[in-house]
């Protein structure tokens, strides 16, 4: 399974992209590309937050294992 990009990284990427877009450094072609990338990240974030569920796993402390042995 491909490892998901961490949420924080996605947000950082989006922020950087918006900053670049706002600075006007990029030419118009690049600006449109940045905007497209941005909307993709936004969709990913929304999807992640709305559809993903928290995964809860149970672990055993080493002590309990040791006692069982």
């Amino acid at each position: 399974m491909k490892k998901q990009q961490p949420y924080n990284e996605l947000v950082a990427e989006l922020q950087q992209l918006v900053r670049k877009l706002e600075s006007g450094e990029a030419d118009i072609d690049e600006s449109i590309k940045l905007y497209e990338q941005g909307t993709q990240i936004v969709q990913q974030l929304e999807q992640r937050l709305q559809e993903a569920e928290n995964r809860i796993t149970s672990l055993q402390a080493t002590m309990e294992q040791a006692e069982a042995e």
Partner: protein
Amino acid sequence: MVPEYDLAAGMPDTAVSVSDFVDLLNETYEFAFPSIVVSGELANLRVSKNKWLYFDLKDDGASVKFFGTVYQLPGPLEDGMLLNVRGTPHMHEAYGFSVNVQTIQAAGEGSIRRAAELLQIKLEAEGLFAADRKRRLPYPPERIGLITSGQSAAYADFIKILAARWAGLNVAHIDVQVQGEIAPLQIVEAIETFNTMAEPPEVLVLIRGGGIPEDLAAFSTESVTRAVASSRVPTLVAIGHEIDVSLAELAADVRASTPSNAAELLVPDKATVLSDVAQTAERMYTVLVDRIEDERSDLNTVSQSLQQAVSRQFDHTRRHLEQYSELLMTLSPEAALRRGYSVLRTAKRKQITDEAGLPKVGDDIIIQHHLAELAATVTNVEQRRHP
């Protein structure tokens, strides 16, 4: 070696050696009291060689000696405290009777509070609660190590609020007892387990709901407090209600007032973040539209100046042309005719010039005037002398 005696069959009649007696007594103690909790007031507490622990527990009627190690201390103790001590009675071959300590717990509200106070003073002096030791928790963390009782309301509240606020979290849970003798040991083990994982969680969450001081005591023991303070993974601790402050909470990087509050501090609220993301998306769109608008306006400006430049060039050329045309007009013979001059031509319409030679008397000529052409005959030729 313990001699083979059948205890059930009753005591032997024959005499036993002192050593055998001690062995027999200890075997009997271990059989009868593998583990017993004795409650009493602490007296004559003494530590030897920084390792061995000697004290008495007493009440109005009796006093019993105890022996253990400093590692079994829940924290600093002082004479007069009420303790619950678990141990096994033992007859030492040289030093006589004592109870070998397994665990020590403060008992009764007063002693618990006093024990916590003493421990707090000690750990504070060591800098365990110092503000500059506090680390920031990752926000939001993706992997969480949760230490609490799986049966507790604290667990249920924490998981519920977490799910309502955030998504995609990995919560690894170690089920521990959160009160009683075994609790501190299990909690310390759980903290250690998370810390030694190949991929440890990004944050450790230690929580327990409210209870009487005795129930919360595990979270103010020295071992748990030290384990929290020394955890390499940043810690978030919430014990009891808002007003209860355990030493583990003081040692934690972040303290939450309740288990629910712990979940609130740990992750942002999904709804807020979604609205932020939507705003960012909108801002991005506005920026792009503005950008396109700017480009269009720049393009208009360039296109206008281009048109102006071209039309200036046109005007210029046209003016030139007009000037030439006026010049041409003034140079035209028609203009001379209009001024009253006439042109003489031969009958064959050849202009009479110096080169062509003058007509002779009798020749037919044409006089070209601006109003008409007149046919004439030369009657006289008188040469003009040139000046």
